[in-house]
């Protein structure tokens, strides 16, 4: 048991990769077998990841279950993994969404099934690895590993404009990644580490803590990291690849993309950009907060007039992730804990929404709102699930969406981070109030869509006799529906484990920014 415990992170990260390799041995024609093997394998990975909950110490804010081995000793890169409250549930979410997405694709993906399953498993490994890597080089490796399978998922199994969408996705993300790579190498080459140069995150953080960069350099470095992460989130105005990618991606691709891939951007801010460059963070937080606010309102407004259900959901993602970024930018324990919670809850709700849209488009091969209307009578169970998920996405208290939004808003309202910036004292207040108006818009675009798709008379004869959820689809949605309710009714279980890590990270950034001089005027204020 101890051996398992010591290597549990490696096991979880590499198990999907091993699964992908194993699948290479199965003949491509055995579609059914491939699907079942993929499903079971990823389900086992999920089961393994649940072991983390057993061994994870919720009271501690530090890295846990760490593993460190020599890797490329000549350049100081090591194989260093660890998990904390920020990454723990993202890890579990990834491990859960992969089998769910696979199961949902049983009927819809008909060609190149083997490659499809392999891609999904590779993607899972990439995401899981990036979430636990504590070595910059290792992180970068996994970061890029996420990119390639996603590129193929969109480009091969997507819809009509899939090639353009895949290319756009790739170019955008790649451009961001390169910026990060430069910054990363610069830090590696210049950080005042005693002895050999190192890619190790804790070592580098300690080094820049002792001898911070001049503020100009730090700003550039933060900017490079931030650009890369902001594209991934995506933040306004770098978001235009996302709706396209979502609309063109197959259902499973959208689920993973919205469910976990986007979160890697938010996660990157918390794990790398803020702790490495605390002083520059303080300079960048106000513009990030404003852009996040713009994203919330802008995403919601644009979602309102979409004709395609899937692109509506995609724009709603931009709005929801605006909340996450606002919570991070507020740099306040409640707000940032809320941001992490919102990442999870958005993964569940939006993942489920994409799955639901997938069900509809499998049946009717169209996602245009105008093609539907009044289908509630034909598909009552599907309607009930859809409305429930929509309500969770709107942030109805008692369901998952409310908890994160509430924490983010109440934390931002009280955040003093912006007091010394150009936004002026009390900026947290108006940011929170303005962001809260996003909850009105969310109700408008989602429920208006629900009204047009499900209610009213059944006008389109093609929708007559539309099939309700099958047993397999029921199995797809059951875990998500349970999570939607559970995370709304008993968020304490999650929050208790998230908070210590967030509190540690937040106070660390605040303290070091203060040491670096930013905080002098902060403290001078009453």
């Amino acid at each position, binding site marked *: 048991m101890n051996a398992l415990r010591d290597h549990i992170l490696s096991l979880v990260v590499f198990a999907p990769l091993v699964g992908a390799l194993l699948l290479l041995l199965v003949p491509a024609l055995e579609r059914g077998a491939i699907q079942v093997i993929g499903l079971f394998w990823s389900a086992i990975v999920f089961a393994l990841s649940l072991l983390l909950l057993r061994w994870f110490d919720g009271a501690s804010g530090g890295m846990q279950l760490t593993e460190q081995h020599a890797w490329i000793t000549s350049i100081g890169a090591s194989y260093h993994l660890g998990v904390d409250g920020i990454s723990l549930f993202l890890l579990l979410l990834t491990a859960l969404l992969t089998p769910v997405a696979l199961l949902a694709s049983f009927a819809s993906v008909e060609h190149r099934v083997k490659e499809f399953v392999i891609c999904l498993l590779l993607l899972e490994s990439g995401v899981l690895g990036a979430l636990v890597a504590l070595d910059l080089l290792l992180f970068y490796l996994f970061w890029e590993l996420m990119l390639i399978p996603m590129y193929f998922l969109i480009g091969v199994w997507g819809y009509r404009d899939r090639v353009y969408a895949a290319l*756009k996705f790739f170019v*955008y993300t790649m*451009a961001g990644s390169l910026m990060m790579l430069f910054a990363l190498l610069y830090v590696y080459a210049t950080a005042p580490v005693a002895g050999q140069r190192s890619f190790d995150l804790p070592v580098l953080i300690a080094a820049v803590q002792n001898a911070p960069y001049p503020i100009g350099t730090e700003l550039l470095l933060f900017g490079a990291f931030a650009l890369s992460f902001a594209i991934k989130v995506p933040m*306004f*105005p*770098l*978001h*235009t690849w996302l709706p396209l990618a979502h609309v063109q991606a197959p259902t499973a691709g959208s689920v993973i993309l919205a469910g976990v891939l986007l979160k890697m951007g938010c996660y990157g801010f918390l794990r790398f950009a803020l702790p490495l460059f605390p002083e520059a963070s303080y300079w960048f937080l106000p513009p990030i907060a404003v852009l996040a606010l713009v994203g919330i309102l*802008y995403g919601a*407004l*644009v979602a*309102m*007039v*979409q004709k395609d259900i899937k692109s509506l959901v995609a724009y709603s993602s931009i709005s929801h992730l605006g909340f996450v970024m606002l919570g991070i930018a507020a740099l306040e*324990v*409640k707000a940032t*804990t*809320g941001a992490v919670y919102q990442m999870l809850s958005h993964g569940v709700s939006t993942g489920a929404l994409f799955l639901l849209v997938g069900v509809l488009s499998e049946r009717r091969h169209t996602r245009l709102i105008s093609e539907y209307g*009044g289908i*509630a*009578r034909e598909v009552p169970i599907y309607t009930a699930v859809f409305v429930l998920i929509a*309500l969770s996405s709107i942030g*109805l*208290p*008692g369901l998952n969406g409310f*908890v994160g939004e*509430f*924490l983010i*808003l*109440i934390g931002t*309202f*009280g955040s*003093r981070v912006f007091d010394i910036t150009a936004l002026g004292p009390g900026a947290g*207040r108006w940011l*929170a*109030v303005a962001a*809260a*108006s996003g*909850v*009105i818009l969310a*109700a*408008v675009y989602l*429920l*208006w869509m629900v*009204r047009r798709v*499900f*209610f*009213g*008379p*059944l006008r389109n004869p093609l929708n007559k006799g539309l099939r309700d959820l099958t047993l397999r689809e029921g199995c797809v949605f059951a875990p998500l529906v349970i999570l939607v309710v559970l995370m709304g009714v*008993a*968020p*304490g279980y999650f*929050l*208790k484990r998230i*908070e210590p890590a967030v*509190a540690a990270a937040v106070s660390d950034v605040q303290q070091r920014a203060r040491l670096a001089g930013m905080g002098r005027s902060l403290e001078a204020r*009453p």
Partner: protein
Amino acid sequence: MPTMRTYADSGLYLIPLFPLIGALLWGLFGKKLGRTVVSWLAPGMVFLAASEATLAVLRLYRLGLKAEDPTFIGGWVGARLEQVLYTWIGVADLNLDLVLRVDPLTAVMLMVVCWVSFLIHVYSVGYMAHDEGYWRYFSQLNLFVFAMLVLVMGGNLPVLFIGWEGVGLCSYLLIGFWYQDQDKAQAGLKAFVVNRIGDLGFLVGMFALFGLFGTLDFGGLESAVQAVADVDRTIAGGLFAGYTVRGVLTFACIALFIGACGKSAQIPLHVWLPDAMAGPTPVSALIHASTMVTAGVYLCLRLNFLFSLAPTAMLVVAVVGGVTALFAATIALAQNDIKKVLAYSTVSQLGYMFLAVGVGAYGAAIFHLMTHAFFKACLFLGAGSVIHACSGEQDLRQMGGLHEKLPITFWTMALSTLAIMGFPLFSGFFSKDEILWLAFASPRGHWLLWLLGLLAAGLTAFYMWRLMLMTFSGETRGLDEHTRTRLSESPLSMAGPLLALAALAAVGGFVGMPAYLPGLSEWLGVPFVNYFAHWLDPQWVTAAAHPGASDLFAAAGGAADLALTAHGHAIEGGLMGSAVAVGLGGALLAFALYLRQPAALTYRVPKLPVVGGLYRTLLNKYWVDEVYGVCPVGAVRVLARFCARVLDDIVVDGLVTRVPPFMLRVTGSAVAWLQNGDVQRYLSFIACGLAILLYALLRGGGP
């Protein structure tokens, strides 16, 4: 006087539990369980909840009496029952327990909500007997009761907010219950969205209160308020440095009141309630008349100790309430849809309650909330019975002459109409009278506020009797032969609740008889006590004891005592008389105009000059919906289109997809120009380079 003591009570969770179980059962298995089972058990679940609630109130009563004097008159000091279930959200300094609490105010709400819900569930069994979605209906109706109970029992603002949004959800679902009708589905959507606008205020109010006091628990807020000695002193540090406590409280109270405006359909967020009549009539009676829409009033009363310290916020509440009361009453004059008349009447009556809150007449507000629940639920159920009998016809102009065919409906509605118009000794008389009197006489009252209420009272009497006469008197005007011959009284399941509610509407007001009724206590020979007010008095202790609210409460007795000492009985009697006179005047006018030819007027009036224009204005509800259609609805739609089609497609996407390739091309061609294969150009580069190098070496001496 000390604030009420709190006692742990492990049984409170049972009250909301039963309807929740019901909602889940009918929602998941309703179709399999069958009509009979659901019809019996759905009201049954509410009955269990009501019984549990009644037991809890009895426990509260016992605990709230002083040990040395266990009588209600002498020894009632109030108490709180509390059950902490678990920590819902706990992060950093924010600690939100899922906590249920019952105090005298909650007790009143519990009794009203539970028992009125039960009666309406019973009524629904008859009303929805032939609807194929009965199981869905009862699931949602049970869910509503659950949410409403969470709302009234929640011990902190966010838990109250769970219920608040929960009832909003059920309202949305039930308004659009017959979802295949586009308009009905749209009405549900409208209700949800308008309520969301109010919710923004609710959220902001919560944030401000948390920023000020660091807690959202009602008990915590109460002690925090008590700890503030001087509300007008500037706050030295923290989030609100530079403001006064009173200033922040005023902001928070107004924000919360915006939330209340949404839920309770006050100007300018009243537009959803009339449309909400698209739902089944029992839903209108339960959700959109007697319980959910009063949640806004309840919220203000729950936070009375905050409002009391914010006179400006209270003034806003009073003015909005008073204006809404009159405004909605005028619209009700001209409506021809029986449910629309009642809907605007509800908006108007809710205005009365806010008027009461705004002048500090908290007891009067909740008293009117209760009596209104009785008579308005009865009126709606009566209207439902009429509509049921008329095969779905809702137009008053088509009805008439129904009193013989529907005697029970007629008499119960007539009693309720007497109650709502404030006919002496009927329930509405006592509650409305108390509000009008305090609107005039309370330290925060004003004769203009009183006048608004008085005018609305006259209009109320008029439009209600117009409705009654158009429905029941004269000859049946519209309705096809088939319906006419089959006109008959509703089944017992529907008539029973009508009778019960009518009885309450008639005599329910006696629990709150004013201490002063001309001649009564002399005749009885004993000083008279207002039992209802006495029950609630402990609720206002915190506010009354606070120096910051001293203008409102001279002593712990509340506004009533203060007003009494200032103005005396003669004024109270005079006001009472004038209210009754105005009510009777309105009623008589209605009789004069509508008794003979109930519908003729509605056809003749529009053709008159001036009056006709006025009539059309009222008929079209002052065109508020049309204005909102332009702004904000139209404006937001244009903005959204602009964002999507121009900003997103052209500007943002254009910039990021065009500019980098353009830059690449520029650098590309620049580099290409450098190495185009022309040897002479290469040589000239080399020469230039050499020259620069040479210059550098000569000048600086080199590295």
